[in-house]
């Protein structure tokens, strides 16, 4: 396939390590993506998202002054967010359970554990393209459905009253 389908995409790379930014840019270029914006932290990335219509975000987790978790939460929940549905892939070496859960609860779409490989990056992008996730909106959360395995024939027991009728959540 020619790169034409990828040429229409705009991607934002949020990463404080300039070498990683450069590597991610080159990998995205290799599949035909031309419009790549870069930011060194979450606050700078939010500025870019207000001006550019990005289709995909790759974000590091640990950055200053704003990390990838606060950035993602702002993208999902801020009334000023230009696209609260934009897919966010978190590219991080912080794979401790509590950090992964915090990022998931902020609304991250996919994870890639560093060291990054082209295979892992492209597999996550393919996953987002082929199987976009439903979003959930409730008082305490807005973001991709955190239940990764839908079971259509699941008969319970239900964790929340009314789940089996109309997706009621606490």
């Amino acid at each position, binding site marked *: 396939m020619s790169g034409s389908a990828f040429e229409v*995409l705009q991607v934002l790379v949020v990463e404080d390590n300039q070498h990683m930014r*450069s590597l991610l840019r080159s*990998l995205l270029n290799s599949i035909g993506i031309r419009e790549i914006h870069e930011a060194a932290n979450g606050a700078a990335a939010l500025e870019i998202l207000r001006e550019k219509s990005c289709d995909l975000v790759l974000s590091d987790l640990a950055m200053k002054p704003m990390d990838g978790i606060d950035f993602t939460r702002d993208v999902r929940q801020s009334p000023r967010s230009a696209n609260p549905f934009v897919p966010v892939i978190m590219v991080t*070496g912080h794979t401790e359970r509590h950090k992964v859960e915090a990022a998931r609860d902020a609304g991250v779409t996919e994870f890639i554990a560093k060291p*990054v490989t082209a295979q892992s990056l492209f597999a996550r992008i393919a996953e987002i*393209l082929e199987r976009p996730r439903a979003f959930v909106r*409730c008082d305490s959360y807005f973001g991709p*459905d955190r239940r990764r395995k839908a079971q259509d024939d699941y008969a319970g027991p239900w964790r929340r009253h009314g789940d089996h009728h109309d997706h009621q*959540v606490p």
Partner: protein
Amino acid sequence: MTKGQLIPPDDYPQMVSKSDAAKMARALRSPETAARAAKVIQQQSQKLQSAVHDYVRELENAAGNLSLVFEKAHELRGFAETAGLRATGRIASGLCRYFDEMEKLGTVPDKAVVALHVSAIGRAARAKDEAGRMSDAVVKELAALVAHKLAEAAP
């Protein structure tokens, strides 16, 4: 209890049409794409290795400052392997794990264990045969040391 709303993918804007998405996903999994990406990484490896060496120097200069050591080790864990310095990345990853686990235990890392890792990272990164059998042995020995120290520190 508040009623939540489930928004299916068809009800919010997607990156591309479904037919384009399927074609693009196939392209992303193709051997041609993998070969192009491998070439990109190969072309950047010299530059990346030079960056790894800069981080190694910063790591060595950070001796005694545990939070700075953790920060630099974390950077090395992140891209040393991508730069082709597999042993360097694995030792840095072991050091990060040691810091993480000790933090969980609420215990200060043993400076001697940290210093051994820093020294091994420096030696591995500068070794001509970085990913050779000697490096593998060092990675294993350090992992065993970390496991032993974590067992000692556990309540």
